């Protein structure tokens, strides 16, 4: 929470909001307490207020882990600001703790001097014990560093809805469940947020039970009123709108943006979209989103497993659909064999991997970047496949379109890497102009005629892209057969010839390499153009790296930044860019996978910084890392 006007306790008028550049707020409670929903709504309010924002939802792997325990705590963090930001914030300024477990689990993260709003109603002996507390933190002095606001969220809620309960309009339990709205109302008041949109939304959500809708609205307002009337809160705050580039904005999560990107690509290609998927955290929402969009000529197929999911997509690709399959690490592992098939078929296909913590089932609800090498080289045989990564929730839209562009242009399966963080967190997204989206209808044309005197050659290649023709069943005269066995040039007939196998293997690599050669120049962020330290990242570390680099530059450091979106082939400019810098740092949420690829390719002593804690990097952490690894080189030659 960085203030523009410095409040002083003595002179501050309670109800004149303090203006802030940004604030980080974390809602934490039981899985059943509706923290994700509360966070989502506050995010929308911040979005509507014109803030830049980044969110970080974090919840347990169990559907509903035992109530009251730390394992059962679900949290949602929001960072919102009046300027361009890139992370969900390192430490919260405000923590809302719905019960002792939430308090204990998250208090450690709170900024010293930060505010913690505690639902005191839940601090009885049993609850403390369940949370694993030896003593009551509200009493044992452990919160001395923070501004503690004890609020009876539960009792206030029940009191607000006394009449409804008495009238039998709702049960006590139902009433109690509204307490998250009390928290939301209170926090909305704290940050001077209008709540009209939320009220409207509640009425829509509970359209079938107006009583519930009104009860929630009532509690929401009750929260605001509590803030306004109790004088318990010394200050309210205001985070003015950010100077975002002009445009129409909404908030969007990575999974949603990715799904929209796929639909947009299909629309811009003039193709039906076929999605074969098998549910898996954190990728399932892509299937859920697409299933709602059948009016865009989208067919979704919930397959019996991940292998059937990709297999069905391959079938649909043969039939002329823009085909996609989405999963997470364990599911991608299962798809490996079929990705190889798609690679030798040379059919367009997008394989989405929303990465999560591994190995094996690992940490299914947490984020990680540890499937990179699986995506780039983890197949039997020489089966090169392009790999594209998603940088942020909003970027998932563009990355999906780019993956589709490559798939359609080059007729190849493309791996599209997202991750649990990007998938679930949200950011304000400037809604693109539909007409300005890439026109993918030119990326391909279905073959309609024979490409040889009196037969069809399914592997006759375009000399530029090396792509083979895409001839779909139903086209007379182009009947052909695809298979996973090695093929002769042009005809695609089975060939066991050794020299041909070598030639085809080289050609399959060359096809993928060419994709790189045809990319626009690499985007290097180096405002002064003279940095000696280069940070190379990929995927969702974009935000934290940009934030860190920004901070460092503010401190007079000179540091350049490249965030790779294409991991295979790696952008051909990169090597040259790396050579221009004395120190190359590669921070990853894995154990050095991109670093391995870059070192092998360039023989440059890339410095890896690896951390896998299921959470994205903190920008402060990266500032330290870059300071340490960059050393003198950060001073440049000045």
């Amino acid at each position, binding site marked *: 929470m960085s203030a523009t006007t410095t409040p002083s306790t003595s002179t501050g008028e309670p109800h004149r909001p303090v203006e802030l550049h940004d604030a980080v707020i974390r809602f934490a409670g039981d899985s059943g307490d509706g923290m994700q929903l509360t966070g989502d709504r506050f995010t929308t309010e911040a979005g509507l207020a014109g803030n830049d924002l980044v969110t970080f939802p974090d919840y347990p792997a169990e559907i509903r882990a035992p109530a009251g325990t730390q394992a059962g705590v679900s949290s949602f963090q929001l960072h919102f600001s009046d300027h361009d930001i890139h992370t969900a914030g390192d430490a919260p300024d405000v923590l809302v703790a719905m019960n002792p477990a939430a308090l204990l689990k998250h208090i450690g993260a709170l900024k010293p001097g930060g505010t913690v709003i505690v639902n005191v109603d839940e601090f009885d002996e049993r609850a403390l014990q369940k949370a694993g507390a030896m003593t009551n933190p509200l009493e044992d002095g452990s919160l001395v560093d923070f501004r503690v606001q004890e609020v009876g969220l539960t009792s206030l809620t029940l009191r607000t809805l006394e009449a409804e309960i008495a009238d039998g309009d709702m049960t006590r339990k139902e009433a109690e469940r509204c307490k998250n709205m009390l928290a939301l109302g209170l926090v909305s008041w704290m940050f001077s947020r209008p709540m009209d949109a939320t009220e409207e939304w509640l009425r829509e959500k509970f359209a079938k039970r107006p009583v519930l809708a009104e009860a929630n609205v009532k509690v929401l307002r009750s929260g605001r009123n509590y803030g306004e009337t109790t004088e318990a809160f010394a200050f309210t705050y205001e985070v003015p709108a950010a100077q975002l580039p*002009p445009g129409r904005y*909404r908030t969007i999560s990575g999974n949603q943006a990715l799904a929209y990107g796929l639909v947009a690509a299909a629309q811009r290609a003039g193709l039906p979209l076929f999605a074969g998927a098998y549910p898996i955290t954190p990728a399932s929402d892509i299937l859920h989103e697409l299933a709602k969009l059948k009016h*865009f000529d989208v067919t979704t197929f919930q397959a019996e497993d991940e292998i059937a999911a990709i297999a069905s997509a*391959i079938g*649909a690709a043969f039939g002329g659909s823009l085909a996609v399959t989405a999963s997470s690490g364990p599911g991608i592992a299962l798809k490996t064999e079929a990705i190889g098939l798609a690679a030798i078929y040379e059919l367009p296909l997008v394989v989405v991997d929303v990465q999560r913590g591994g190995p094996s089932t690992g940490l299914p609800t947490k984020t990680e970047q540890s499937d990179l090498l699986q995506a780039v080289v983890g197949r039997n045989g020489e089966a090169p496949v392009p790999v594209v990564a998603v940088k942020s929730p909003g970027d998932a839209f563009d990355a999906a379109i780019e993956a589709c562009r490559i798939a359609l242009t080059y007729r190849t399966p493309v791996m599209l890497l997202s991750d649990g963080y990007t998938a679930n967190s949200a950011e304000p997204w400037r809604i693109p102009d539909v007409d300005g989206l890439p026109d993918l209808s030119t990326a391909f044309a279905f073959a309609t005629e024979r490409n040889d005197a009196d037969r069809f050659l399914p592997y006759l290649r375009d000399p530029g892209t090396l792509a083979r023709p895409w001839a779909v069943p139903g086209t007379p*005269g182009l009947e052909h057969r*695809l298979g996973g066995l090695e093929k002769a040039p042009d005809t695609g007939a089975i060939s066991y010839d050794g020299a041909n196998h070598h030639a085809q293997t080289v050609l399959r690599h060359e096809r993928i390499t060419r994709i790189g050669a045809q990319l626009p120049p690499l985007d290097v962020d180096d405002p002064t153009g003279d940095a000696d330290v280069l940070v190379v990242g990929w995927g969702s570390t974009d935000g934290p790296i940009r934030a860190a680099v920004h901070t460092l530059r503010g401190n007079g450091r000179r540091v350049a930044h490249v965030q790779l979106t294409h991991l295979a082939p790696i952008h051909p400019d990169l090597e040259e860019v790396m050579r221009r810098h004395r120190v190359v740092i590669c921070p990853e949420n894995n154990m050095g996978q991109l670093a391995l690829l870059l070192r092998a390719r360039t023989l440059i002593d890339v410095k890896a910084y690896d951390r896998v804690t299921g959470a994205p990097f903190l920008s402060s952490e990266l500032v330290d890392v870059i300071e340490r690894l960059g050393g003198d080189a950060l001073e440049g030659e000045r």
Partner: protein
Amino acid sequence: MSTTELPQLTRKDFSSDQEVRWCPGCGDYAVLATVQSTLADIGARPESTVFVSGIGCSSRFPYYMNTYGMHTIHGRAPAVATGLSVSRPDLDVWVVTGDGDALSIGGNHLLHALRRNVNLTILLFNNEIYGLTKGQYSPTSPLGSVHKSTPMGSIDRPLNPVSLALGAEATFVARSIDSDRKHLSEVLAAAHAHRGASFVEIYQNCVVFNDDAFAAVTGKDTKQQNQIRLRQGEPVVFGPEGERAVVAGEDGSMRIVPTAEAGDRVVVHDATREDPTTAFALARLAPSPTGPTPIGIFRAVEGPVYDDLAREQVARAKAAAPADLRALLEGGNIWNVG
């Protein structure tokens, strides 16, 4: 596709230019010839026909068909075909698979294609052996089979493909024989005509690794004794003179008795019964094809077809809302900057 204006095709129109590479004498040749001529007979068009196979000797099938084709990976053909069929309802999609491909590694995809009732015609070439990998026993090999991986005899109880398919809710289930061109052709035509998933088990002789596995049912001397031909609406009797009959026991299971003793208890075959129990009972008559074995169509009932329902949802969604990309992207709460 209307075929009225198109010229009648012949078997040759369905033969590709690829040299057929099965062992001399392999039962696959006969099936290939019958499929090709049946396609011509039923007025199929090469351009709108697709053969999808897995891996195995039998799965080389698509290469020899002058249609569209996909030789995929081991066991996954029904899943590939599902994606194709659902997204392209205008095509005739055939699946060719083996007893290993369909029942071992691919068992799950087979059963899901059947229970979903995807519009596929699935031909399972059952030779009770893994041919391509040179002779290991398969899920249909009888207990005690001695092959490469079972020098002391196999200990896995075999599956009965017909009862498995029935247990998996299949709407069309049949069995035929590689060498019986006429019977096979009739079954194939009926399978093709069925809307939804059609499952046809074809006894196929592997001359190299499992010769004569079906001799009891296909041998010149034995076949009349052992083929129980199921004919819609007809009593189930068999033998050179029809001297044996199938009757239902009181508990619903079936038995074979001399026709003379059967009286009016002879089962009259009706493949269109909604309840699959009778079909199942017939399948259980012959745990393995070493004695009297039913041949023909066990079950043929109407059911909701996955493809149709999928298309219908898309059509309904389209009718309800335009494909307006701008509106999609602008869904949710919007604000303007600048």
